[in-house]
């Protein structure tokens, strides 16, 4: 919520440099990030105090939150905080805690100078640099920043050569490089973050489009068909078919690794029968087995048996039960329809007997047909298999 001060001090999840401590502190105090970071950098030169403080705050604020809108801060409060920080630094100096006054002052000047240049603007992506609408550093702040930076650099030029063994020029270049990195780092980071967010958003939209496309092709089509249909049997068939298809899609019963399973093949065959012959098939499967030559024959024969039941039994629904045992696959196609006298009708239905019996027996299985007039029909297909 913009403009509302966050009550708790928490680390920042986004828009951070290290662990988000400075950012979180900036949010909590309502100060621009750059100044808080400058303060920590300055304290780092005092026996690494900034580092210890950073670690301590890290431990305190274990929770992380999204980048929060800092509350607007009164100018007097900024001044007060600045005065307090300077006082603290001077006190450290007064009790002789500065390892090297020049270093401390130099880093302070560079850090705060850069901070002033970067300013309070929450850095926009690089494109925003050329966008006239984006907040730019005010002239005064620009001036203060440049003066501080120049001062720091010239101090380095004058004194650092004595302190370290490196050449002053080298250090000056390095420090300036760091300054530039600090100044533009947030922009670059923000830009990268934006790119990331954009990509995520794109992926999300693609997923949504995929879902929408699927629902359109399946559910919406079916709903349209149902509205146009005036045959209750057809309506419930459409609904049933759609239900099983949607469930497969939602719960992913389609195997992931591309291996076709007998249960999936049988469900697919049953769905087709429901569609073409308008007879619901209750499918129950126990265990599973991959589709190979012999189990394919089993699925084919089961499909024939279902077609038979749908065409000839007169039953208003049928059951398909598949079980994969350790050494055998079995399929039962059961209906409660008219049934027939197995012995007498067999000759008339030679074609059917061939297509079911022939297929299964060629693959090494057996077929049993159990039926009596008026008692329904059950076709039992068994296929021995080797479980690997």
């Amino acid at each position, binding site marked *: 919520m913009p403009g509302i001060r966050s009550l708790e001090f928490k680390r920042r999840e986004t828009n951070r440099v290290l662990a988000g401590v400075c950012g979180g502190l900036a949010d909590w105090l309502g100060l621009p990030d750059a100044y808080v970071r400058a303060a920590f950098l300055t304290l780092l030169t005092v026996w690494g105090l900034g580092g210890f403080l950073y670690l301590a705050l890290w431990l305190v604020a274990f929770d992380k939150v999204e980048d929060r809108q800092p509350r607007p801060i009164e100018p007097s409060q900024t001044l007060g905080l600045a005065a307090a920080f300077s006082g603290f630094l001077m006190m450290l100096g007064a009790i002789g805690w500065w390892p090297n006054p020049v270093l401390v002052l130099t880093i302070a000047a560079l850090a705060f100078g850069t901070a002033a240049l970067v300013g309070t603007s929450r850095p926009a992506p690089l494109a925003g640099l050329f966008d006239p609408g984006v907040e730019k550093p005010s002239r005064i702040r620009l001036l203060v920043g440049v003066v501080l930076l120049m001062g720091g650099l010239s101090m380095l030029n004058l004194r650092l050569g004595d302190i370290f063994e490196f050449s002053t020029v080298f250090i000056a270049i390095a420090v300036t490089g760091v300054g530039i990195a600090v100044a533009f780092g947030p922009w670059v980071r923000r830009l990268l973050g934006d790119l990331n967010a954009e990509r995520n958003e794109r992926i999300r939209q693609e997923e949504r489009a995929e879902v929408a496309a699927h629902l359109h092709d399946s559910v919406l089509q079916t709903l349209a068909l149902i509205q146009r249909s005036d045959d209750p049997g057809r309506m419930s068939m459409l609904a049933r078919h759609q*239900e099983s298809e949607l469930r497969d899609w939602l719960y992913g019963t389609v195997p992931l690794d591309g291996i076709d399973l007998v249960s999936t093949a049988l469900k697919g065959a049953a769905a087709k029968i429901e569609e073409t012959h308008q007879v619901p098939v*209750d499918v129950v499967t126990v265990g599973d087995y991959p589709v190979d030559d012999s189990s394919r024959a089993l699925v084919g024969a089961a499909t024939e048996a279902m077609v038979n039941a749908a065409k000839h039994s007169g039953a208003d629904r049928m059951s398909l039960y598949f079980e994969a045992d350790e050494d055998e696959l079995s399929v039962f196609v059961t209906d409660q329809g008219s049934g027939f006298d197995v012995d007498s009708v067999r000759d008339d239905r030679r074609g059917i007997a061939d297509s079911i019996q022939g297929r299964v027996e060629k693959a090494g299985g057996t077929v049993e047909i159990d039926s009596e007039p008026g008692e329904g029909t059950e076709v039992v297909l068994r296929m021995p298999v080797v479980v690997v």
Partner: protein
Amino acid sequence: MSVKVYLVDDHRLFLSGVRAELAEEFRIVGSAYDVDSAITEIRGLQPDVVLVDVHMPDGGGIAVIEGVLETTPDVKFLALSVSDQAEDVIAMIRAGARGYVTKTIEPPDLANAVRRVDAGDAVFSPRLAGFVLDAFAGAIPSDDDPELDQLTSREKDVLRLIARGYAYKQVARKLEISIKTVETHVSSVLRKLQLSNRHELARWASKRRIV
């Protein structure tokens, strides 16, 4: 005195449909759309049979069953769902439901199921029978109570026939036993399902979830 039935389902349209179907034969004492009000009302009304949806916000049917059975163990539950996710269904039975039917069930069959649950029997739809066979398939009995962890071959026979779409009456005729014996077998399977500690049940459920 007709059987007192209570309905719990967050789909109001479905609820009113079931209410109309069952109202002729049973006394519908109330209904609820959510878990919390269902628990409070069922405790107060003490219906004989509760038809409860598996999937609902705030814990679903399991929360209702567990919440009610804590204080009123005499209420019987029949789970009703479109979901058909094996692990959800088994979880409902393990929570205390006495049966499971899909919402596509024909009205006369639903009435039949309610009567059976009221009589203290278990109601196994073909699909539930398949799930149970699957769950107990290839079971290695644990040391705690091997009896509970396996189905007898007779129980498996009964379940297979139910899975093949046989009604209890037809199962009895096929196996040449009485309907009462079929009911005993089914109730014993239900008890095993509810009491078995077998690790396989949990592992099976998690395997199903991945596949």
